[in-house]
């Protein structure tokens, strides 16, 4: 663990203030609320991956008991409401903008994936709505289907959208093609891999849910929603659906049961819930069932990649060249094209000093669920490519993978990469050293021999990842085609009795913001943590926000809070100066919650100043405004760059192919930590999702576009007995992009773990590559097709 302690509470492992309600069953998740007059919505979803809707007969459903309304794509179109589309504008090599494809929330004329919403039923009970869905008759004319990216780009492949010939959304390029070709021409070794980054279903334990209220008299909507980004989605939902101007739309998220990226988008169900509330003038609630979530939550990953690494005779990396086909699914989700492009390719050089990089990313429509950000979002895909390439290079050129990494690592900071990012402050060698020491890297041959004596095949693998976090610097995001800068707001209101309200646009959904933000402000004002309250998740409260994505809440959200704390102290000093009769604010000192006039024993506690400022009486004859509140917006100059070294040891049973994680060591550099206990918990969760991707989880479609892994019975969720006890260490170099020196920790585990596991298995089996997930069946087949 880090020994970094920044304040009395900030930097220490304080127990979480939000725990109390959850351990007593007193949380308030979206489905927990039933409004007066509540109605319930259920959807008819397409059973076909690609079909024309010839006719829809809703008459029996409309006549069913309890049914208030049945809505179809025609109703949505007749209402003149807007389409969903991607909020990111990438460009093809030719300079053409990406092809959007029309995305009506209720399918109109054609369905393009199994799960595409065809109709919505609103009824007085959940069961009545579901029963009535079964009474809707739809006549479909089935069409040919493209499921896999490699099939979807073939000549003659079924076309999903008229505006996207060849199903190509964008063919985006990154880096310097000529320099990269020159690097490869000069290479003595070129390592080539063709690999798949397997498709994931995020599966937050709380499924998505919406509950919309429409105030007809005022024309106002309130959408209760399980989301990671209420403020951002308020703007976006208003702009896209055009159902309500932004000032007439309020989004409220109380407790949110995980998201992992999947709750950061505008979904069809959100638009339909608002539409349904308007049409019925009743509160309309939709709670996603798990099997429905598999067919409607944006999936993650799903890349096909051909990757090449050029080395000289000494093992120096000269260049990286990558071509990826990224599956977008049937429609573009909110940040679909951002993920495989800008959030991935600039990190293809990893922790290494590589002078040339060139990436081409073709985003491709297929007849599958839309794909978008999932924990790490693009950065796990990049780390997987480079870390697999390095191990394949070590394997093919007969080098030690650890040594090959060490010799190519960047050692001087700041460092601007060939991909255009500036890593501000990192220490890669130390992470590698500490992780190697913790797992006893040098002692591995003895453990391998001991395992062999037991009939097991042991392997060791490492990954050294780096990610760009703290979304984000508006200047850089804008240069990438972003339409809105992801800066963050904060407001602090000091109440008359000394209580402190912090408002943020970040959205706690398990990360412990209520604790960490209160820790910071408690230190800043010298008040107990229980006098500080974090308020979030309601667009009627904070002024602006970009939610919790991209490990931004600490680096950016707390950065905004830090600025506001400074403003509050400055204002308070002015109030104290007048109260204590000082000539200037410079005569007022503030420490440990007490303001003193320099050179005197005159002092006021923070709470006393809160009263004086808010009461306003004693400062009424000065030029000081009454009140003690302030607001700030923080827009960082750069990303933050968490990095780490993960080392995994596996034991494989050659008779069954079962891969057992024998040991797993993590060393992360998250800069300064707000709460080490929470940070370690984030790592545990991320590592398990990463190992889940590497060993267990996979999203499987058959050739007709039916989802075969559509429930927890079929999609292997990681469980407690799949894992050993992880050993987690920290080595922090402070970030320079925010006043706290924090880098963000939410995504790291899911980035660093997959290549570490796969590298351990390829090491064990003495092979250059095997695609995830490394199921027993696949590993057994590999063992039996090689001499391993």
């Amino acid at each position, binding site marked *: 663990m880090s020994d970094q302690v920044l304040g009395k509470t900030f930097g220490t492992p304080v127990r979480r203030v939000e725990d109390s309600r959850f*351990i007593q069953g007193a949380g308030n998740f979206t489905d*927990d609320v039933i409004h007066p007059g509540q109605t319930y919505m259920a959807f008819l979803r397409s059973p076909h991956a690609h079909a024309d809707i010839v006719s829809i007969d809703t008459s029996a459903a409309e006549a069913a008991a309890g049914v208030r309304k049945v809505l179809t794509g025609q109703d949505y179109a007749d209402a003149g409401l807007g389409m969903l589309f991607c909020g990111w504008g990438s460009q093809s090599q030719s300079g053409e903008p990406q092809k959007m494809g029309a995305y009506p929330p209720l399918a109109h004329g054609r369905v393009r994936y199994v799960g595409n919403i065809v109709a919505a039923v609103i009824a007085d009970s959940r069961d009545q709505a579901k029963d009535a869905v079964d009474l809707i008759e739809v006549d479909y004319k089935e069409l040919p289907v493209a499921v896999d990216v490699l099939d979807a780009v073939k000549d003659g492949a079924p076309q999903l959208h008229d505006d996207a010939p060849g199903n190509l959304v964008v063919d985006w390029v990154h880096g310097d093609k000529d320099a990269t070709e020159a690097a490869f021409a000069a290479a003595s070794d070129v390592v080539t891999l063709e690999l798949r980054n397997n498709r994931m279903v995020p599966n937050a334990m709380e499924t998505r849910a919406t509950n919309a209220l429409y105030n007809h008299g005022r024309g106002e909507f309130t959408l209760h929603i399980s989301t990671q980004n209420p403020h951002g989605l308020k703007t976006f939902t208003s702009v896209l659906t055009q159902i309500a101007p932004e000032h007439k739309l309020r989004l409220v998220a109380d407790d949110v049961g995980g998201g992992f990226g999947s709750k950061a988008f505008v979904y069809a169900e959100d638009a339909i819930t608002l539409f349904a509330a308007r049409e019925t003038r009743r509160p309309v609630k939709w709670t996603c069932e798990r099997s429905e979530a598999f067919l409607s939550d944006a999936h993650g990953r799903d890349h096909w990649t051909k990757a090449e690494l050029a080395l000289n005779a000494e093992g120096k990396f000269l260049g990286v060249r990558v071509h990826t086909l990224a599956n977008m699914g049937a429609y573009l989700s909110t940040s679909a094209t951002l993920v495989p492009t800008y959030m991935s390719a600039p990190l293809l050089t990893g922790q290494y000093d590589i002078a040339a990089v060139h990436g081409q990313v073709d985003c491709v429509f297929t007849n599958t669920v839309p794909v978008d950000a999932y924990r790490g979002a693009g950065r796990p895909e990049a780390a997987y490519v480079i870390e697999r390439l390095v191990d394949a290079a070590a394997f093919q050129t007969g080098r030690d993978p650890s040594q090959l990494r060490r010799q190519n690592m960047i050692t001087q900071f700041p460092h601007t990469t060939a991909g255009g990012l500036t890593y501000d402050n990192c220490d890669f060698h130390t992470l590698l050293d500490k992780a190697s020491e913790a797992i006893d890297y040098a002692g591995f041959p003895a453990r391998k021999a001991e395992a062999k004596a037991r009939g097991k095949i042991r392997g060791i693998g490492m990954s050294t990842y780096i990610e760009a976090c703290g979304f984000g610097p508006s200047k850089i995001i804008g240069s990438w085609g972003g339409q809105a800068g992801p800066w963050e707001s904060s407001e602090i209101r000091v109440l008359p009795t000394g209580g402190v309200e912090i408002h943020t646009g970040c959205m706690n959904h*398990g990360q412990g913001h209520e604790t960490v933000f209160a820790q910071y402000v408690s230190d800043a004002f010298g008040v107990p943590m229980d006098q500080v309250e974090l308020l979030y998740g309601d667009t009627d409260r904070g002024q602006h926000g970009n939610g919790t994505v991209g490990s931004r809440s600490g680096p950016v959200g707390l950065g905004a809070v830090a600025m506001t704390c400074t403003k509050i102290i400055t204002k308070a000093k002015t109030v104290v100066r007048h109260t204590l009769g000082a000539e200037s604010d410079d005569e007022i000192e503030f420490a440990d919650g007490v303001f003193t006039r320099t050179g005197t024993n005159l002092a006021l506690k923070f709470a006393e100043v809160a009263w004086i400022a808010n009461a306003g009486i004693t400062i009424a004859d000065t030029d000081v405004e009454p009140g003690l509140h302030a607001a700030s917006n923080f827009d960082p100059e750069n990303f933050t760059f968490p990095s780490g070294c993960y080392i995994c040891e596996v034991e494989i049973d050659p008779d069954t192919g079962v891969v057992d994680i024998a040991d797993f060591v993590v060393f992360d550099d998250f800069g300064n930590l707000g709460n080490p206990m929470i940070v370690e918990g984030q790592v545990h969760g991320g590592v398990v999702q990463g190992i889940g991707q590497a060993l267990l989880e996979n999203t499987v479609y058959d050739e007709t576009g039916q989802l075969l892994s559509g429930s927890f019975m079929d999609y292997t969720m990681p469980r407690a007995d799949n894992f050993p006890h992880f050993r987690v260490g920290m080595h922090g170099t402070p970030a320079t992009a925010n006043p706290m020196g924090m880098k963000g920790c939410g995504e790291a585990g899911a980035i660093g773990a997959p290549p570490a596991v796969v590298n351990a298995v390829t090491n064990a089996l003495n092979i250059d590559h095997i695609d995830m997930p490394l199921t027993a069946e696949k590993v057994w087949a590999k063992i039996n097709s090689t001499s391993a």
Partner: protein
Amino acid sequence: MKVSLTVNGQAETQEIEPRTLLVHLLRDQLRLTGTHVGCDTSQCGACVVHVDGVAVKSCTMLAAQAEGAEVTTIEGLSDGANLHPMQEAFSKAHGLQCGFCTPGMIMTATDLLRRIPNPDEETIRKELEGNICRCTGYQNIVKAIKTAAEAGA
């Protein structure tokens, strides 16, 4: 039809449809929303409650089957004044993040210690096979249950 049962010590009689699941009776009619629904295939364990002292997935039991039963939900686990030691242990060990799986985890864990008072780590991990958490990676949940066992929960 009517069903009569005792929930957290309170006698309840409710009019239900025969197809009503116990979890929906608890959540929608008795408004005990601490018991959650995380899946529809009896896999995730977010809905675990105690029926006559034994852990049960309340999504896998008809409300009608609970006729005459004593049901304890997460809301009824503490004595009202103090947290149950398992609740305390989950917070102390940081065994929860988003909190959605937590009630089911705690109800499963208390049932585990009723049957096996001092489980080792491997036993705890195997016993959690029916409860899915997507946030914590399980490590601190295992730690919480160990902590509670050591405290004699």
